[in-house]
Structure formats: C-alpha cells, structure tokens
C-alpha cells in the first residue's frame, strides 16, 4: 500500500530514533521477550510516560507509549512465566527479577510496579499478534480449517479472527485476568489502559486491511474496543477450555454491531431525506433557503 518513497524516510526515522533513545517498538519488544537478553548500561533518555501527540503524521511515526530499557525487558520477560501462578503481582515481578539475575530490590526499576507487568503483557501480546499476521500463518490456518482461500476473508471476518486470536493468548492467564482488569481500572491507570486498548483496536483494524479514512475511522475503533473489552470480561468467567462461550459472545456482538450500523444508516438516510424534502418544500413556498 505504501509507496517506497514513503517507507524509506520512515524507516530511516525509526532507526535514527532507536539510535537516539534506543527505543524498542512493540513488535521488537515481543521478539525480544522470547529470547534472553544481555543487559547493558542504560540509555540516557527514557520515555516511560505515555506520549500524547495531538496530530498524526506518516512521516513521524508515533512513539511507543511505554518504552523499557534492556534490564527492564529482561525482568519483565522473566516475570511472564510466573503470572499464571502468582498473578500480575509484585511477587511475579520479584521472581522475574531473581530469574533474570537481579535482586528482589531491583523491582524499583518499575515506578508503576505491577501495572508495568500488565502493560508489558498487553504490549507484547499485541506485538505477537502483529507478528503472526505479518508471517501470514494466522489467516492461512483459519482458512485451511474452514476450507476457504485466505484471500477471501472480508475485513469483518478478519477482525473477528484477530479478536478471538488475541483473546486466546490470554487463556493461560485467564484465572489472573480479573486482577489485571482491576489494575487497569484504577483511576491513575485508566488513561494508559485506554491508550493501549486503542492501540490494539487500531492494530487489529489495520491488520485486517481496513482502509476507511472517513468518520467511520472513529466509530470502527470505538466499536471494536467495546467488543474486545467486554469479551475480556466474559472470558474471565468462561469455563470452557477452548473459549467457545467467549467466541459465541464475540460473534453475537459483531452481529449486534452490524444491526446497529444498519439502524444508524437507516436513521441517517431518513433524516437526510426529511431534511431535503423540508428544504424543497420551503423553497417551493418562496423561502430564501
């Protein structure tokens, strides 16, 4: 989609940026989370606070919302295997620090403590999802299962597949997910959590080749975020091992979305028709409209 002329300066910018701040984009984070890391001394600039920018530009890609240095990534990656047992908690972080060769006290590296673990989980799973799609394996697998061609999926279907895939990534930590939701709903954590939710819905839509640039850009992301967030809550209470209840729930919500969309379109058509008619009637009466 993007022409070469547009992608080249963009790549150059990213590499410049990574030189300057040694930033790790979410994709890279997820890849790094799979391998043990060598910790180095830290870079001078760190952007742990979310970066809020009031404009969008393809030439200046959005900075990642939360960056971690190598030591932090090492501890967080080592803490992930402890989550199913200890939850998104300080204990899991401390165990991760021990596994990565740090001390218990080193969890002071994380000013937001457990919430950093939640954020890292979200960001790294999001990166994994993107990696799966970019390899092309995900849609091919689903297509083989249903006996269809991978290129025949509509945007809508792709969205649904991606939402379910993302939910399935949470199935290991299903028992602990309510704790994570509680962390995310703390007042001070809400803005960052919402940013992360938006990033996920944005990723899912762009990965399913949604190219809308009109007002529906907002409504689509809003709808997808709502579906995903509610499905997460349903998932925490889903007793089935393959999340079939959650899948049914997601399917129902997508149908609801369609129905709602049709209704809104119908209402707006009706309103515009009535408006046009009223203007026409007024003009025929001689009103200067």
């Amino acid at each position, binding site marked *: 989609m993007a022409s070469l002329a547009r992608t080249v300066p963009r790549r150059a910018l990213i590499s410049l940026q990574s030189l300057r701040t040694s930033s790790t984009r979410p994709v890279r984070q997820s890849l790094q989370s799979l391998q043990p890391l060598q910790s180095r001394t*830290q870079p001078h600039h760190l952007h742990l606070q979310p970066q809020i920018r009031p404009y969008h530009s393809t030439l200046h890609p959005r900075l990642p919302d939360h960056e971690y240095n190598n030591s932090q990534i090492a501890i967080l990656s080592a803490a992930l295997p402890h989550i199913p047992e200890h939850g998104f908690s300080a204990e899991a972080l401390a165990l991760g*620090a021990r596994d990565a*060769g740090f*001390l*218990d*006290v080193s969890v*002071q*590296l*994380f000013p937001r403590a457990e919430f950093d673990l939640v954020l890292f989980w979200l960001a790294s799973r999001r990166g994994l999802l993107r990696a799966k799609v970019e390899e092309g394996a995900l849609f091919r697998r689903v297509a083989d299962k249903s006996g269809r061609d991978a290129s025949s999926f509509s945007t809508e279907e792709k969205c649904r597949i991606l939402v379910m895939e993302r939910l399935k990534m949470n199935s290991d930590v299903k028992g602990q997910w309510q704790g994570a939701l509680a962390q995310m709903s703390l007042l001070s954590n809400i803005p960052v959590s919402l940013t992360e939710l938006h990033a996920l819905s944005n990723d899912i839509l762009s990965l399913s080749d949604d190219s809308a640039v009109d007002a529906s850009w907002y409504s689509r992301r809003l709808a997808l975020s709502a579906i995903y967030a509610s499905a997460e809550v349903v998932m925490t209470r889903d007793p089935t091992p393959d999340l079939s209840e959650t899948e049914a729930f997601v399917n129902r919500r997508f149908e609801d979305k369609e129905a709602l969309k049709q209704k809104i379109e119908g209402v707006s058509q009706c309103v515009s028709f009535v408006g046009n008619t009223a203007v026409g009637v007024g003009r025929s009466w001689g009103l200067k409209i």
Partner: protein
Amino acid sequence: MSSRSAWRALHHSAKRRAFQPATPYRCFSCTRRAQDQPKSEQDRMTHFGFTNVPESEKESRVGAVFSSVASSYDTMNDLMSLGIHRLWKDHFVRSLNPGSPLPAGPHRKGWNILDIAGGTGDIAFRMLDHATNINHDIETRVTISDINADMLAEGRKRSVQTPYYNTSRLDFVEANAEHMPHIPDASVDLYTVVFGIRNFTDKQAALNEAFRVLKPGGVFACMEFSKVDNPVFDAIYKRWNFSAIPMIGQLVAGDRDSYQYLVESIERFPSQDEFRGMIQKAGFMIPGKGYENLTGGIAAIHKGIKPVVKA
C-alpha cells in the same frame, strides 16, 4: 556635614590604595612564578549554607551543627515540617517495600540495607518494621552509618525501645559516606540516604562510593529537600523557611545558627534534574522520570539502580 566627611574619608582611602598587580613580579624565564602555588587541596572552598568555607572545615562545621541539634532533632522536625516529614518517611519506606515476602533462595538471606546519615534511626526502624510486619521477613538487616557520634548515640538510645535492640538485624557504624573502606564491594542490596546528602562535602564522591558498595541490581534511594515548582507555593515556602524556621530553632532548641544553616543548605542543594544527572554520572540506571516530588517538590525521592553486567 557628617555625610560629607564620610565621603571624603572614602575618597581618600580610595586614593591612598596603591596599585598592586596580581602577580608582583613576572618574567618569562624564571621560576619566580612557582611561588604562586595553586591552591592546595586544603584551601579548596565549598559552601556551608550561604557562606563559603574551606573543604577541610565543612565536615567539622556540619558536625557541630548536628551535635547541637541531636537531642531536639525529632521535636524540631515535627515543628518545622508541621509533622509532614513522618508522612514522607512512611511513604519512602512503603515505596521501597523492604524485605521479601517470598521464601528466600539458597544464597539469599534477607536484604542488606545500608542507611547512610541515619543516625537517629528514623528510617532504619521503619524499614525493619515494614520488613517484619508486612513482608514477614525476619532476615533483613539494617546498618546505620553516620559521621556524627552524637546522632548515633541518639539512635542507640532509641533502639532500646525497639525489638531490634541488641540483635544482629541492627548495626551502628560511625563512618564518612564518601569513603567507606570497611564495607566490601557489591555487598549491599539497598542504600538509603534521607535528608543527609546535602550536608556532604563531596556529593559525587558519596554517589560513587554508593555505586561501589551496592550489589549489581541494588538500589540507591535518596530523599532530600528539593525545588518547589509552583512559584506561588514557592514564595510561601521560602518565607516559612527563612523567617519561621530559624525562629522556631531559637525558641525550642535555643540554637538559631544551626537552623539558619539548615535552611541555607536546603536552598543550595541542586534541583531535581541536576541531582538526577549526578546519580546518572555515578553509573546508575534511572527508573522512569528518576524522581518523585513530595508536597509540591519540597522534598523529592531519587532512585537509581546499579546495572547488572553480564559477561
């Protein structure tokens, strides 16, 4: 009339002063210049409140201040900060969360905490309480180090009231934080210095020494007075500092000069960003922003982590 005579006197004295070049005799090829020796280590100046004193003198002067305030230290802290210093200290200890709730591994025996300039034991007792009562860790121990024997004596006196008196969990050492040869390299989990580092003669040397004694992954945590960011609040705060505190010192502790020094040293201490730069210069990693402001920036908590270098 009198003003005129005064003017004349000034005039005369100005005239009478003979011209004196900075170097009285100077030629290119002789050793005479060697007489203008650069100032020796002994004569280098550092600040003591708003006045400049030789570096060699600062230590003894600070010592005199704290010897004179040791007995009334707590009352004075309460009066000066309106009791808020207790909240700060509680918050500091809670955010560090000393002690491990998890069963210690084979090589780990609780945390080894070094509390610098903690003579009266304020922080040390809080940390031990937190480790014992919250994390059920009875292995964690604290070494209180202070340069001032009077403050240490005050802390020893208070430790009698605590359950840690005469146990291996609490230790008192009289030492200069800039040079601690009795503490081996990489032996400390947590290094704290609370309202102490601004009195040090050479802060960077103390930071480097902290870096040396900490284990890789160990944490340097420091709470110190800092700069208020809101100008309106800053004006009120300065007014309180320079008018009220010396007066309270005079009334309660009978010692105005010590408290005058205290507020001046607060004023001279570097800002949050400058101090963060010093911590980084010593080699520490900085988590997030690097500091946390308390009560609008009156005090700030700085943290640094010693990186783990893998071969």
